C-alpha cells in the first residue's frame, strides 16, 4: 500500500505491507536510525518518535496507519545544531551508552512544549516508560529541569 509521510520535514512516498511496523520502516526503508529496537512491546520507550507532535511508540504503530502524517525524530530536532536540551544532556552527563537518549530527548521535548515549567514530579511522569540502564535517571531529570530554567544552573 502506498503511504505518504513526512519524516523530519522530508516527504516520503513508500510502498508498505499492512503488517510492516513503523519502527522497522523508519529504520530499514527511510534510514532513520535514532528510534531503537528495544522491547518491541511498548514498555521500554526506546522506539519513541513524535507523530504529529505527540510521542508514540513506533513499535506499536503500523506503517499504513501514518499515511498523511508528520514524523519527527531526534535527527529532525537537531538538523542544524543541537537543541538547548541536547546540550544540557551533554553538560549533565545525562547519557552513557546513548541507546535511550533519542527517545528521552523527544519525550522531554514534548513535555517542555506542553509545560515550560515542569516540577521534578512532572519530569519523572513524562519520562516514565523510557528505560535507561546506565544513568540512574538523576542526570537526565537534572538536564530537563535545567532546560526548563532556560539553561541556568
Amino acid at each position: 500500500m502506498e503511504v505518504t509521510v513526512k519524516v523530519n520535514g522530508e516527504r516520503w512516498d513508500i510502498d508498505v505491507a499492512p503488517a510492516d511496523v513503523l519502527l522497522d520502516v523508519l529504520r530499514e526503508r527511510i534510514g532513520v536510525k535514532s528510534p531503537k529496537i528495544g522491547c518491541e512491546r511498548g514498555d521500554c520507550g526506546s522506539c519513541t518518535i513524535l507523530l504529529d507532535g505527540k510521542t508514540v511508540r513506533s513499535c506499536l504503530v503500523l506503517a499504513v496507519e501514518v499515511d498523511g502524517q508528520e514524523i519527527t525524530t531526534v535527527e529532525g530536532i537537531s538538523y542544524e545544531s543541537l537543541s538547548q536540551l541536547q546540550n544540557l544532556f551533554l553538560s549533565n552527563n545525562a547519557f552513557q551508552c546513548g541507546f535511550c537518549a533519542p527517545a528521552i530527548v523527544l519525550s522531554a521535548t514534548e513535555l517542555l512544549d506542553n509545560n515550560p515549567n515542569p516540577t521534578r514530579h512532572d519530569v519523572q511522569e513524562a519520562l516514565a516508560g523510557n528505560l535507561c540502564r546506565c544513568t540512574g535517571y538523576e542526570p537526565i531529570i537534572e538536564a530537563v529541569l535545567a532546560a526548563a530554567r532556560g539553561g541556568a544552573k
Partner: protein
Amino acid sequence: MVIAKEFEYQRPSTIEEAAQILAGHPGSARVLAGGTDLVAWLRDDAVAPDLVVDIKAIPDLHDISLEGDILHLGSLVTFSDLINSDIVHERAPLLAEMAETVASTGIRNRATMVGNICSAVPSCDAGPVLLGYDTTVHLIGSAGARSIDINDWFVGLRETARTGDEIVSHLTMQVPPHGGVYVKLMRYAGEDLAQAAVGIVAYPGDQYRVAFGAVAPKPFRSARIENALQGKPLDEALIAEVVAMVADEIRPIDDIRATAAYRTRICEVMLERGLPAARDRLNGSGPAYGTRLI
C-alpha cells in the same frame, strides 16, 4: 521481530461502512484504534486476523462533551485526551486520575479508553472506574445501533458483550455531583499494569459504587459491599465491616506479578483508604485527585 502473518488493511470513513466490512469477515477481522494492544498481540502471534479495520479515519469519534449531567466520550478518546480535558477535570476528575496511572505518555497519546475496555484484560484500568458510574456503551453494527449497560459489558476473561461486526461509537456516563477514587497497586509509581485496583464512586446520601480490577477474570462491582455501605454514614466500624468482606468477594490469582494473598491484603488496604477519600472528595475536601493513596 516482525509480524509473521500478512493481513489486509482497510480504513473506512464511516462507522456504518466499518461495520459492513466487519460483517463480511466473520471471526477473522480485528478493529484497530490506538493499536497499543492489537499491534503487540499481532507481533506475539496472539491474534492472527485476515483483516484489520482501522477506525481512526472516522470523524466524530474524538468528542468529549457534556449535556446536562451526561458526559459523552467518543471511542477514539485517548487517555491523554482525558488528562487534558477541562470537561473531564471539572465533571469527572476520577477519569483523569485513572488515566494518569495508565502506562506512559507515549502509550497514553495513542491508547483509547474504549480500546481498553474492548481488550478487557483483567487489569484494564478503565474497567473499575467506568463501573462506578452509570455508563452506557453505544455500538454500531451491520444490523444497526444498540446500547449496553457497562454492568453487562464485561463477560469474562478478555470477553465483552460486543459482537464481531460491532464497533463502539461512544460512551455516555452519568456525572452528577460525586466523589471518586482509583487506587492501583503497581510495582513502582510511574508505569505498570495493575496488580490489583479498586475504583470507588461516592454519591450523595451515602451511596457507594465499589469495583475491583485485576483480582478476577474481569473487572466487577461488589454488590455485597455496596449494599452494606448504603445509606449509612461512613465510620471506622462500617469500613472495618466491609473490609472484612473483601477476601470473599475477590478471586485473585498467584502470578509473576503478585501472589493472591498479597493482592487480597492490598485490596483491603485500598478499600480502607479509598472509601473515606471518595466521601471527602464528594464533600469538596479530601486528597487532591491524582494523589496516590498507596
